[in-house]
């Protein structure tokens, strides 16, 4: 009896051990571009987890591609996520993190530990800081708290003299006076957004329509893959179109699991967004992506991914929705966590960057080897991606795969420099052309 007991125990123990090794992800470049290679889904007993331990930047700075240089524009932020240049050259930095997540299942405790180790759980500033670079070289820039006591803000947009903040649960309008460094007037709610108590994906990006009549707000899903029930997903995994005059909204596009940082492509005029796809189907599924967003289109979540690849974890399934699902335009590879997108139309960086898109990849936590943790540039021709991306800003990981920083929001300032919010290094990085004169 004791022999067979031992045998069973050994079998079970080795099954558990097997679940813990040899699940490395493949070459990410195979799943970049219009036609990513998608392996079969694999649900492990213990899903892979690989968290980059946090270290300080110290005297290090990110590594930039040849022809570029980088400096810290400012540091000492509290979890900076979004950068928004104002027309007068001021730069707004949204300092934020998600609201306290409820523990709904035992694994939520493990996720809290992941955030603790990876530095993702640090409290955000819930505020917006204004930076006004000095016109005279060598002078320190002005730095003020532009807006304070916000509720997990992420997206902002200025339309005329209306300044909009997308808190995690509402779009709030503030009056903006040209040149002011601090908004003291109280805000008014333009439209509520899906918020707590679960609020799994809490970041709400904002984009104004070119004519200024509409605001687009991204609302990520309330779960990885519907585990909190479809009731929790009302108006989520969507980009909502909000009427500026009335606050009425409609779903502009759906099935986008966690869309962020919508932008208008300067050539085609189409809306583009980066999207974080679902987890726990293996190290090479599902590739995060960048896509143009069509009015009324459905992009698959939760029922399927990359068109008609049905997700076995969703019940009841919806074959009618799977049939409608649009394949996204450009895969970025799995678990890179793209959160920032900006098209480059400036002239500070070398001319080759013009017309392409920079993407800020926050970096993976559930894949070995690590993926992301960099800013890439994707070439565009006539408004379509036209080739493999190029690593533009790296070095967010040190040689031992410790994380010094994690890029989030991107922006191009008035001088044409690329700005990068680093929510782990609490820094805003400024990338310029190596021979540019701009300070």
């Amino acid at each position, binding site marked *: 009896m004791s022999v*067979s007991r031992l045998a069973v*125990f050994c079998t079970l123990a080795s099954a558990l051990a097997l679940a813990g090794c040899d699940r490395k992800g493949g070459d990410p470049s195979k799943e970049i571009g219009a036609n990513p290679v998608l392996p079969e889904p694999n649900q492990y*007993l213990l899903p892979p987890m690989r968290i980059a331990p946090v270290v300080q930047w110290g005297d290090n700075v990110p590594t930039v591609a040849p022809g570029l240089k980088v400096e810290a524009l400012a540091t000492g932020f509290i979890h900076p996520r979004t950068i928004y240049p104002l027309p007068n050259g001021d730069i707004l930095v949204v300092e934020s993190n998600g609201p306290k997540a409820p523990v709904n299942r*035992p694994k939520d405790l493990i996720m809290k530990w992941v955030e603790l180790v990876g530095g993702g759980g640090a409290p955000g500033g819930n505020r917006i800081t204004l930076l006004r670079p000095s016109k005279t070289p060598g002078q320190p820039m002005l730095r003020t708290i532009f807006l304070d006591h916000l509720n997990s803000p992420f997206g902002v947009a200025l339309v005329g003299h209306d300044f909009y903040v997308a808190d995690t649960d509402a779009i709030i309008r503030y009056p903006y006076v040209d040149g002011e460094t601090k908004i003291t007037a109280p805000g008014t709610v333009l439209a509520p957004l899906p918020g707590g108590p679960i609020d799994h994906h809490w970041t709400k990006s904002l984009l104004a329509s070119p004519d200024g009549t509409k605001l687009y707000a991204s609302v990520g899903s309330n779960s990885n893959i519907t585990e909190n*029930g479809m009731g929790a997903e009302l108006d989520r995994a969507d980009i909502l179109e909000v009427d500026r005059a009335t606050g009425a909204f409609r779903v502009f596009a759906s099935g986008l699991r966690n869309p962020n940082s919508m932008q208008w492509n300067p050539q085609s005029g189409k809306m583009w967004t980066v999207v974080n796809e679902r987890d726990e189907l293996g190290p090479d599924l599902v590739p995060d992506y960048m896509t143009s967003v069509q009015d009324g289109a459905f992009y698959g979540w939760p029922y399927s991914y990359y068109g008609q690849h049905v997700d076995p*974890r969703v*019940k009841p399934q919806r074959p009618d929705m799977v049939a409608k699902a649009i394949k996204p335009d450009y895969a970025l590879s799995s678990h890179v966590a793209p959160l920032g997108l900006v098209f480059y139309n400036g002239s500070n960086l070398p001319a080759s960057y013009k017309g392409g898109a920079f993407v800020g990849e926050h970096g993976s936590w559930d894949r070995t080897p690590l993926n992301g943790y960099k800013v890439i540039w994707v070439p565009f021709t006539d408004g379509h991606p036209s080739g493999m991306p190029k690593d533009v800003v790296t070095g967010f990981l040190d040689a031992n795969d410790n994380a010094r920083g994690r890029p989030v929001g991107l922006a191009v300032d008035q001088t044409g420099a690329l700005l990068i919010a680093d929510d782990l290094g609490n820094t805003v990085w400024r990338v310029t052309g190596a021979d540019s004169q701009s300070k």
Partner: protein
Amino acid sequence: MLNNHPTSLVEAGARPVHPIFVPVAAAFMLGAFVTDVLYVETYMGMWETFSIWLLTAAMIVAALAGIALLVDLVFRRRSFRPVWFRVFACVVGALLSLINAFIHSRDGYTAVVPSGLTISAIVTVIVLYLGWNGWNLSTRREAAE
């Protein structure tokens, strides 16, 4: 068993400790099977959430049962006569439930179907077998009868 007199009155009257915990862990495991069935019937994630918490509670109490069993084995070795097959059944039930807790930590339908529900059903059979034997993994000493 005349050569095996109890060393003290305390031990002579002592009952094993582990049956305090075994039925509690078993009840949690049975509950997880019931909520798994309800999930499959309704697709409501709430029932899957019940299952994973029930399995978590089962694992905590099963660990306590394991400690109690060790206490019985070590400190009451004169009066304690384990029935090894029942101990084996207990260990298998606990290990299967541990695996089941990992499976139930997946997101969505595959947290339950097919492997989660299958293991819950197997564990239920084991639990019923243990219950039939009064949750006791030992025979009482003949001398005490």
